[in-house]
């Protein structure tokens, strides 16, 4: 168990002298606290697996340091790092039984037999593997095999962190939910630091108390699910999290007003000192833009189509060239072609070159 610090950590598969913009992981400095449940969220190729492999030592960083409880472990091999990792596809040892598979990480470290048995029994119980303990692992289904992989990751109680690299990819959707809540429960029971890599926002948001969003080799925001939803620090976070994602549209912002195609949207804060020459956009989540019958004082928009998600309906609308998604309030009969848009001014954020700008009150 440990606090993990990344200090100016960066990696390029092309070697240290490669072009900095091509780095798989751009320099990052951050801290993972002991006992936290973290999710690393981002699309494929954003560097999240690289970051994970750097922490576990499978990949040696081009630059920077990794500290466990303040001790630099960057040069240490995976074996000496005291870390557990679960991979995307099940890895099981063919010749061993389920129980032997679970015991393998402990046996390799010379843990006394009684202790191994107790711990294996505990983990098997938590993962519902007890009835299969004496079966050969090769004979089980993919789901069960991945549970064994998970179990091997969790069986050591002394690890600095357990890393999960999209561990539920091969699992049936039905079982995915169960396993995810199981992992969450295990996190509470075992007091382990867990880092969970995924490209699925639901998975990330339900598992983690801190979600770290990555984009193009960079950590763009790390925060609670609520923070990511309410105040995305980067347009990518706004767009990536939420379904549908945040509306991000180019706008002219002056003082407390944003202009889109000549229409004015009021803002809660004042933006007087925006960097000149930067690309200015406003971002607002569809949940905070309501469709209303056309009325004076409301922005008028053309309706392209309605997405009925069952519980909630979203309208796809246009103001000039700018496309928006907006919520259709329950019970509202949808206007034919054009409608008014009601913005919640406190929820409209301003971005300069994709980064959130804090206005002045």
């Amino acid at each position: 168990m440990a606090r993990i610090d990344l200090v100016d950590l960066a990696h390029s598969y092309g070697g240290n002298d490669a072009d900095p913009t091509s780095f798989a992981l751009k320099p990052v400095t951050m801290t993972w606290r002991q006992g936290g449940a973290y999710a690393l969220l981002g699309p494929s190729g954003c560097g999240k697996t690289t970051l994970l492999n750097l922490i576990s030592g499978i990949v040696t960083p081009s630059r920077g340091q990794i500290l466990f409880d303040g001790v630099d472990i960057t040069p240490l091999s995976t074996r000496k790092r005291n870390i557990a990792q679960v991979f995307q596809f099940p890895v099981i040892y063919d010749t061993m039984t389920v129980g032997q598979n679970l015991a393998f990480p402990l046996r390799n470290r010379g843990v006394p037999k009684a202790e191994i048995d107790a711990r294996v029994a505990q983990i098997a119980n938590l993962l519902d593997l007890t009835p299969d303990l004496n079966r050969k692992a090769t004979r089980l289904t993919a789901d069960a095999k991945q549970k064994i992989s998970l179990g091997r990751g969790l069986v050591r109680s002394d690890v600095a962190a357990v890393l999960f690299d999209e561990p539920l990819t091969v699992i049936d959707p039905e079982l995915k939910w169960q396993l995810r809540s199981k992992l969450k429960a295990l996190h509470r029971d075992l007091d382990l630091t867990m880092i969970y890599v995924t490209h699925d926002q639901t998975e990330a948001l339900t598992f983690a108390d801190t979600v770290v969003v990555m984009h193009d080799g960079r950590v763009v925001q790390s925060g609670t699910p609520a923070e990511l939803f309410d105040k995305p620090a980067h347009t990518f976070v706004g767009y990536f999290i939420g379904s549908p994602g945040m509306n991000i549209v180019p706008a002219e912002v002056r003082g407390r007003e944003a202009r889109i195609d000549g229409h004015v949207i009021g803002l809660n804060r004042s933006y007087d000192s925006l960097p000149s020459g930067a690309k200015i956009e406003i971002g607002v989540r569809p949940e905070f833009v309501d469709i209303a019958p056309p009325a004076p004082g409301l922005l008028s928009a053309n309706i392209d189509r309605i997405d009925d998600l069952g519980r909630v309906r979203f309208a796809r609308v246009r103001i000039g060239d700018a496309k928006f998604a907006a919520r259709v309030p329950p019970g509202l009969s949808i206007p034919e072609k054009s409608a008014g848009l009601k913005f919640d001014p406190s929820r409209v954020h301003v971005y300069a070159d994709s980064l959130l700008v804090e206005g002045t009150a």
Partner: protein
Amino acid sequence: MDKTINQKAWFLVLPVFLVVAFSAILPLMTVVNYSMQDTFGNNQFFWNGVGWFKELLDPTTDLGERFFASLWRNLFFSAVILAIEVPLGIVVALSMPRDGWRVAACLVILALPLLIPWNVVGTIWQIFGRPDIGLLGYVLNNIGINYNYVSNEFDAWVTVIVMDVWHWTSLVALLCYAGLKSIPDAYYQAAQIDGASRWAVFTAIQLPKMNRVLLIAVLLRFMDSFMIYTEPFVVTGGGPGNSTTFVSIELVKIALGQFDLGKAAALSLVYNLIIIIVCWIFYTVMTNAGSERPASKGVA
């Protein structure tokens, strides 16, 4: 739906029938025919029933004695070369580089012995081992080891075995290498995470993942060594005495040396039967190795 009747399709199958008939079935039937008869030349044949088979399988007769002696000799030879080539091949495969230009270099070097015609292999070792002009024989005798594969049985055996190991270990190594290459990196990474030692990685991952190619390697090497003829024939001619006379060498001696067609035919049929049975056993083991057996009843 009506089935289209088109008997012309038979003409497409016919060539295959003809080829198989002339290349396999007719020769085999000729051998079966010979095995039931005796001949004293002049194309005169006399019916002998299962007489040759009885004699062959009875170790108290001359034919039976020769057959069983060569059979045990041959099985011992196969066991020895398997015991050497399989572990050695695994070690070679494990110590090969995993990527880069060295892989290509290693593969080419390994493939070289496999590309040499068998009688050339025999000739190479025949000359290599000669005490008068062969590098190996000359050097051994000069450092005080009395080595002569022509007069000493043990030396003859060593020569034949070393030759086979030199010739065929590459095959085992290449098969094992292919098996090793097919193991996903995640297994090695997981083993590192799990703190597995080098030995544990070998026994828990590499060996189990190689077991199918190893079975194929053992099958191929067993078959080849059980049917070995050319190389020992070129080097030792089956001698000294009968010490390196393997089954196929004995067969040729009977068939062509003594022109005992009936005895030779009976021997070759039994020989063939043994090979088919061993193949079948291997095939059964291989197909069962990967399939699910009923789950064990054990419950913790």
